[in-house]
């Protein structure tokens, strides 16, 4: 059978789980391990941890979070942010990551994708594309959370990533990310039709129905979601954030945005199964 995966995405800054809009304006939401545990119990298919400030500092600082998580959570863990070399990759795999997610370093040096997939196996190497739709309708790939212009065409880059031997592509629509306005179905279905490897769609989930549309019309093999699940979690649970770093106002108000209808992973999966989409409940 063919199943879809639901992958909660945990953006991390220092000790905290954060969430932004268009990958920017980060708000503190809580302690990453609280969210990870809840998502595991709710039937998450994998987890992605992204060190959102790593590229700025050129290092990934998630080692402790990863090894703590991997001790208790027996589903695949992907780690991204600031991974620049074979030895960086080796290091996060050694502390408990199952896959790595590359972006900035891969665009700067595409050969890294080939070297890393030969060494660690294709399926260990995930490449993320941060796509922004330009005024002329072209999609260009950005790096560093949608801040750095590269001039690289998203569709050409996706095909190159496939040829270089990566195992999966995460396609983020920066325009939609954090807005809850739905996925960029044109972008995702075009990427999915161009490559032979699985495509993980990210950016825009605000309602369950949008996820169903994405799978049916966007042909995504997996969906990566943060706000929809995070906002449900902070509404229903207590998670003590470290207030030493970042803006915790949002968290303390237990707010959400009107564009989101927060839900659990289990709710979402039940809805998908009711609509004849296969997934593990």
């Amino acid at each position: 059978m063919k199943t879809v995966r639901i992958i909660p995405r945990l953006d991390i800054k220092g000790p905290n789980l954060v969430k932004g809009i268009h990958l920017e304006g980060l708000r503190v939401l809580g302690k990453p391990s609280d969210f990870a545990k809840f998502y595991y119990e709710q039937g998450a298919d994998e987890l992605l941890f992204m060190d959102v400030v790593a590229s700025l500092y050129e290092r990934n600082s998630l080692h402790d979070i990863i090894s703590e998580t991997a001790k208790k959570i027996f589903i695949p863990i992907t780690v991204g942010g600031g991974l620049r070399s074979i030895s960086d990759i080796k290091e996060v795999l050694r502390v408990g990551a199952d896959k790595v997610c590359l972006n900035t370093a891969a665009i700067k040096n595409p050969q890294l994708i080939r070297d890393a997939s030969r060494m660690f196996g294709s399926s260990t190497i995930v490449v993320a594309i941060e796509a922004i739709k330009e005024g002329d309708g072209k999609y260009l790939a950005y790096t560093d959370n949608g801040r750095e212009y590269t001039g690289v065409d998203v569709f050409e880059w996706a095909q190159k990533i496939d040829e270089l031997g990566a195992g999966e592509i995460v396609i983020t629509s920066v325009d939609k990310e954090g807005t809850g306005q739905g996925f960029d179905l044109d972008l995702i279905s075009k990427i999915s039709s161009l490559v032979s490897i699985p495509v993980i769609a990210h950016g825009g989930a605000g309602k369950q129905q949008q996820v169903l549309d994405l799978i049916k019309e966007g042909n995504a093999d997996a969906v990566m979601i943060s706000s929809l699940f995070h906002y449900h979690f902070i509404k229903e649970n207590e998670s003590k954030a470290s207030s030493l770093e970042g803006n915790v106002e949002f968290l303390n108000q237990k707010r959400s945005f009107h564009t989101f209808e927060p839900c659990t992973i289990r709710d979402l999966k039940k809805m998908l199964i009711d609509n004849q989409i296969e997934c593990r409940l």
Partner: protein
Amino acid sequence: MDNLKKNVVIIDYQLGNLFSVKQACDTVGINAKISFDRDDVLKADALILPGVGAFIEAMNNLKELGLVSAIKERVNSGAPIFGICLGQQLLFTESEEFGAGNGLDLIPGLIKRFPEKLEERKIKVPHIAWNTIYQSNQDWDKSALSELENNDFMYFIHSYYVKPSDESCILTKTDYDGIEFCSSIIKGNIFATQFHPEKSADKGISIYRNWALINNLL
């Protein structure tokens, strides 16, 4: 009490994450040690051959570390071995892609790659998904899968699968988008899965526990 327990060696062929395999062992009480030392392998009560990396790199590293003959010697003298994902593939004779005689040859058979297309329909490879396993030629009640139900979901991440010459060793099969393949095998002291039990939540962890119980490793 650890010194009364059997010693299990998780074979480290130097390609990455053995952390979760070790965690799974710790969780169920298997006394496991990660090692690439030939003597450790030769002295082990049981072996785990994990699934990390690429086939050629893995075999080359096993050869360089002197582990090919050590693994065969241990398994041929009856020590239980548990192969996972690539670790299952390494047990076989040869890879369709990489040529003959390249595997450990403990189980006769081929390693095949998923096709790019099936009846003009594109097949996404690697197969990265939770997918169901179902009973094949053997009853699994007495195997390490005993706590599982038919069609339970396990986590898969692979581009290749095994095709045993003698199908009687096939324990479960799985269908990926119309392609049916062997997802676990059992043959005497050899047990192996294409999926990752250590990544398949509680049901997956039960496979470690039951493998250890069956082989008196706890």
